[in-house]
């Protein structure tokens, strides 16, 4: 059965791949956590037979009711029955973890695995319960070992009565779990998401940004164990928020992009030593900055501070009705279209999210 199941899962994987664009552009999955299972509906996988088209077909039923009454519609239950008989039509629901989905995404987009920059000098303490001690807190008492000790003692002292096998442990019988501290090298990557939430960004634009950020995050999570994330939203001023706010907030105001870059810089200086961390910066905007001066500021910050310390700086520009899209052109003018350190992409609509992911992650840096 295992092998049949695996064959089936392989087919399902193929189906998911086919439908991936749809999943990615639908917002249902946003906000899910990495290792939880998610259920995604797929069109039923089936072997076609010459059969009757039974939609809108009547039949014979049984029960009370006048002519013209509605027939309650239960799904036909598979339930009891002999083998080999038909069941009701179900659409197929498949459980996958988000991680698996990210893997499928990686396969489909042929994403390269990300090269770690060799900055592996952060160590983390891990506590592992692996030993047994005679002393310890009651909460760590090892029941089985304690019982065994007590049993051994009572048999050897002749207290044990097979007809009334009551075992009472005394203090000396007690055994406790003990832990050992291990040092582990941990992944050391931080992603800073920056999003323009100014008035010119409509709901749909924000949604696209969120979706893109979500899938980026999902993919990068599979590449680094304990990935750090920071979220910055900005209009005329920038502030750091938690992921929930990032994914859900609705604000409006003017736009000063430099504010976000300054905050990102400060964040990194304060928390993440560029020598130790792989740093990914993603910025999403509709490209409508308030003033040319500010844009010049941005370029300066990027050139002098952000680019040298980050693995990658990605700029995704969503198309909005109000946005001029000027910032992307400015970036290109300043850095050239094929700058190593900067990856840019225009995201026209939801369908383009897949392509954006491909561009952002295709370099494997």
């Amino acid at each position, binding site marked *: 059965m295992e092998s049949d199941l695996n064959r089936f899962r392989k087919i399902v994987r193929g189906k998911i791949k086919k439908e991936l664009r749809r999943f990615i552009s639908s917002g249902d999955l946003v906000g899910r956590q990495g290792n939880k299972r998610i259920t995604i509906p797929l069109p039923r996988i089936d072997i076609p037979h010459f059969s009757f088209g039974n939609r809108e077909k009547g039949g014979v039923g049984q029960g009370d009711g006048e002519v013209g009454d509605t*027939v309650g519609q239960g799904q036909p239950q598979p339930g009891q029955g002999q*083998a080999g008989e038909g069941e009701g039509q179900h659409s197929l629901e498949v459980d996958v973890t988000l991680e698996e989905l990210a893997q499928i995404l990686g396969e489909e987009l042929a994403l390269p695995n990300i090269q770690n920059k060799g900055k592996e000098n952060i160590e983390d303490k891990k506590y592992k319960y692996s030993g047994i001690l005679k002393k310890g807190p009651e909460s760590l008492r090892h029941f089985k070992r304690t019982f065994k000790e007590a049993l051994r003692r009572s048999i050897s002292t002749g207290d044990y009565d097979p007809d009334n096998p009551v075992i009472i442990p005394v203090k000396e019988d007690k055994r406790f779990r003990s832990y050992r501290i291990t040092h582990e090298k941990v992944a050391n990557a931080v992603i800073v998401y920056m999003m323009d939430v100014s008035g010119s960004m409509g709901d749909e634009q924000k949604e696209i940004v969120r979706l893109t950020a979500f899938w980026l995050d999902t993919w990068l999570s599979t590449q680094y164990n304990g990935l750090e994330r920071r979220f910055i939203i900005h209009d005329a001023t920038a502030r750091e928020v938690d992921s929930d706010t990032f994914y859900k907030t609705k604000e409006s105001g003017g736009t000063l992009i430099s504010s976000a870059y300054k905050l990102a810089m400060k964040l990194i200086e304060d928390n993440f030593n560029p020598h130790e961390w792989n740093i990914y910066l993603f910025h999403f905007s509709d490209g409508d900055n308030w003033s040319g001066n500010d844009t010049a500021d941005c370029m300066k910050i990027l050139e002098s501070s952000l680019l040298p310390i980050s693995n990658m700086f990605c700029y995704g520009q969503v198309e909005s009705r109000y946005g001029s899209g000027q910032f992307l052109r400015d970036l290109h003018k300043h850095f050239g279209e094929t700058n190593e350190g900067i990856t840019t992409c225009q995201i026209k609509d939801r369908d383009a999210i897949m392509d954006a992911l491909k561009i952002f992650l295709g370099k494997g840096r």
Partner: protein
Amino acid sequence: MVHNTQLTPELRDLAASIQEAARRAGLDFFETIFELVDYKQLNEIAAYGGFPTRYPHWRFGMDYERLSKSYTYGLSVIYEMVINNDPCYAYLLRANNMVSQKTVIAHVFGHCDFFKNNYWFTKTNRKMLDQMANHASVIRRFIEDVGHDEVEDYIDCCLSLENLIDIYAPFNQAARNVTPANYEDETEHYRGEPVHKLTSSRKYMDSYINPNEFLEGQKQKQEEKAKRKKNFPENPERDVLKFLLEYAPLNSWQKRVLGIVRDEAYYFAPQGQTKILNEGWATYWHSRMMTELHPLQDSEIIDYCDQHSGVIAAAPGQLNPYKLGLELLRHIKRRWDKGQFGIDYVNCEDPKKRSEWDKQLGLGDKKLMEVRKVHNDITFIDAFLDEDFCHEQKMFLYDYDRRNNRYVITNRKFGEIKHSLLGQLTNFGQPIILVKDGNFKNRNELLLEHQHEGTDLKHEFTTECLRNLFKVWQRPVHIETIIEDVKRRVSYDGSSHNVEKI
């Protein structure tokens, strides 16, 4: 992994005493072997159609996953499973309580008796357990030789056509065993003596015994016969799979796989043909056993009732075969016990007299045994579903109301209900499709014909199936059917589909 599938001593005794009671009641079955399995094993076996070993195929994996999921979420529990085989194998779910086990064991003996005695099962292979295992090893060998993907893709094609069999073929061997030698004889005969005459001893009587019109008629008949012979197949062939096996350009492993799929389809066919009667019969017997012949203890009655009512619960808008079968069998027993049959009863129109009709014949049990021996669902419903039963059971017809996007009850007329029910059961719910011409357009193309009986084929499946059929026949394939009241021919030529009016 080795699983202990042996019954506990308690269950073993129970099975023995229920078996004893069943035999006393007149049930006659193959030796029945019960195995105790956990839900995982049961789901596995159920996914394999009741058999412990099947050939490798992803579809079983899919069924398994669906069964396990619906078990995990508490949507459904498989109570019993039994294989038509000699000996019969039946599986008991380890986690069931004792009342369920009793009911299931009694139910299983009902099925076993049915398998052994029902006419429609007489042609099935009673060593199917071994046969399935053989099929599995044959296909595994092909997979090793040819490659997993190729074999599996091909099995997909065959399975897609598996319902194109002639369910009556196993019972109609004589008519089909016309050897080619016979054709030869006839042809020569035809050449020697063009028109078949009746013999007359006196010449002058000849024009009376064989008048001109008669001779003309004979001649025409013979011409038609000659014409038919040019057809290929001579008569439309319902066993499409057989036709493909004989004439499709398949290599040896493909032929064998198609043969295996066909064998298994024929094995499972009677179960589709007798669903109502078979389940009704088993339910009838577990009900009688639990309440009468091998009674439960007082403390068990509530649990039993709870379970039994679950089995025969009728959800609105659908027919529960367990309930329909059970009620109809009880109806028959009542009628034959009271002598409510025969011309007098049928012609009696006085409702009072009819309802009080009781000749105290007590023929019910005997009649039931006969019913289980000769009937399948269609003949069962046709012969015994009468107007009284229809009203008693509150049967109705429902249909889809387009305007309000829901199903509504359309009427409660006996004639229409019965007609619709029989229609549903015809060819066990599958469309009737025949090979009409194996040399269509004189270009070795295959033409199938769908005998339209009011319901159109599901179009997207039709095109998919044609694609699969093409893979087997390897020349363009066509099917004639009716789509939205217009006769059309759907074709597939290896690259594209085409629908044309004819």
